[in-house]
């Protein structure tokens, strides 16, 4: 430990480059984004060094825009829909795979592969499976006589949102399962042994031991899930592009459109900041729960 103290400055040598890099490419852009959001930044003024400051005009413009307000709502609907599905199934799978049977570990390890795949491809294959003409989902449902004619899943606002939530759950369920499994494994086996000696049934063990002891994990899984889902971009952008008729437009896709399709950089930056504020509030809650855990 003594030698460590002596070389303390070398510690900074290890850490500083990464910190400086993140400050330059994330810290500075975040600040710059706030600046842009107060400026008249469009394609015309893009290369100007002194853009006019226009106060809150960009914010009043986007909040007056019905599509933007709808995008906030869609983002929440999407996030809550995903959270409910991926948490319930994630927990069910975690409990199921926590049992010891032959294939429990190999299969539990295998299904998380979806987390590693490019979201672009996930979006495309779900778009293909739910396509009206050549989609396998319509073919299966028609074969089972559940529907009479092919449904245009992505051509209707409500079903399109449903398909987006489903596609995200394909990644979200295994990921939630993985995080919850870690929590379940951290519960000491002795507790269950003592409980079963005292005559506690499996069901009692689940509700009186597993779930209460899993509470901190559940909290952080939910908040982490919220943050990761709320910022969705690739999935929505590739699968529906915010359509049909803005029905699945979310904050990040709308911000992207404002900046890079309409070239209203100021408004795009403002929309991204609204997204940031929503996330920031939830991230604060997350930090409180994880620091309490320690």
């Amino acid at each position: 430990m003594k030698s460590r103290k002596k070389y303390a400055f070398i510690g900074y040598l290890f850490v500083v480059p990464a910190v400086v890099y993140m400050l330059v490419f994330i810290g500075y852009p975040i600040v710059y984004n706030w600046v842009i959001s107060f400026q008249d930044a469009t394609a015309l003024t893009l290369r100007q060094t002194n853009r006019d400051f226009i106060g809150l005009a960009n914010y009043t413009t986007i909040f007056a825009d019905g599509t933007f307000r709808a995008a906030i709502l869609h983002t929440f609907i999407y996030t809550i829909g995903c959270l409910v599905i991926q948490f319930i199934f994630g927990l069910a799978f975690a409990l199921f795979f926590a049992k010891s049977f032959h294939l429990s570990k190999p299969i539990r390890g295998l299904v998380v592969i979806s987390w590693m795949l490019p979201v672009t491809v996930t979006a495309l294959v779900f778009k293909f499976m739910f396509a009206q003409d050549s989609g396998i989902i319509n073919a299966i449902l028609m074969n089972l006589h559940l529907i009479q004619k092919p449904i245009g899943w992505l051509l209707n606002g409500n079903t399109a949102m449903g398909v987006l939530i489903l596609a995200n759950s394909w990644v979200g369920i295994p990921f939630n399962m993985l995080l919850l499994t870690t929590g379940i494994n951290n519960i000491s086996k002795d507790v269950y042994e003592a409980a079963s000696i005292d005559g506690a049934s499996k069901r009692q063990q689940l509700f009186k031991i597993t779930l209460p002891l899993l509470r901190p994990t559940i909290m952080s899984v939910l908040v982490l899930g919220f943050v990761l889902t709320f910022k969705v971009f690739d999935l929505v952008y590739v699968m529906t592009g915010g359509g049909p008729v803005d029905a699945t437009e979310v904050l990040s896709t709308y911000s992207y459109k404002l900046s890079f399709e309409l070239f209203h950089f100021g408004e795009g930056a403002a929309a991204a900041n609204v997204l940031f504020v929503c996330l920031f509030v939830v991230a604060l809650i997350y930090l409180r729960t994880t620091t309490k855990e320690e």
Partner: protein
Amino acid sequence: MKKKHLNQKQRSVLCDILAVIICCIFLFPMYWIVVNSFKLDSEIFLHTPTLFPHHFTLQAYKDQLGALETTLKNSVIIAVGSMALALLLSVPAAYGLAKFRIKGKKILMLVFLVTQMLPASLVLTPLFLIFSKLNLLNSYAAPILSTATISIPFVVLMLRPGFLSIPDELTEAAEIDGCSPISAFFRVVIPISKPTVITAACFSFVFAWNDLAYSMTFNTNAKMRPMTSAIYTFMNQYGTKWNSIMAYGVLLILPCVIIFVTMQKHIVEGMTSGSVKG
């Protein structure tokens, strides 16, 4: 006693069957990508989709050969460049945060954790303006520099616990033998942490390889596009050429699948420690 034993065995078999069903449902989309990349257009538009290609063909791959060559090369350059940059910065940072007294260490770790949760949309507009001023749009530098910001916090959080568990005696012994702390890091710490550093490399590669938002925004020139944004553009132009789209998809998921299968245990561990906290 015998009856109970049998029940348990039956139950276990039942669980196995259920697990296989779950597995099949979850792996089906991947299967669907692969199978359809080997079909002809006409087969995809049959009234009932075929579970196996009746007429196995590489046509979809051949059709895209010209475009694939450029975009595949771009993807590899961006992913490898981003990986190298991210490792160069984050491996020492993780070690520094694990083994040295640093002021505000806790806050730094929290900052890394929070940066990970930030949406790309938040920095897209400012980075676009910055890169545009620096004339870095449509270059390899723009996506490399921006995707490294995804990997750095993840790798720092993922590697720190491993570095923490290295006994101080090891590096101290090296320092007594005349190594500086920096050469002890390269000669002792890195070699014994090889498996986790390789895992970190895999994650950094995959994060950059999978990126769409940054590369699509900064590199609009078709010659500079990686595969993710090329496949997206292709889909917008030829919305129903599903076999070609899936052929792109196969090549895109291939490195991720290879990495996952060969180092599954490390990857799964890394996923938890990297995305939750160090």
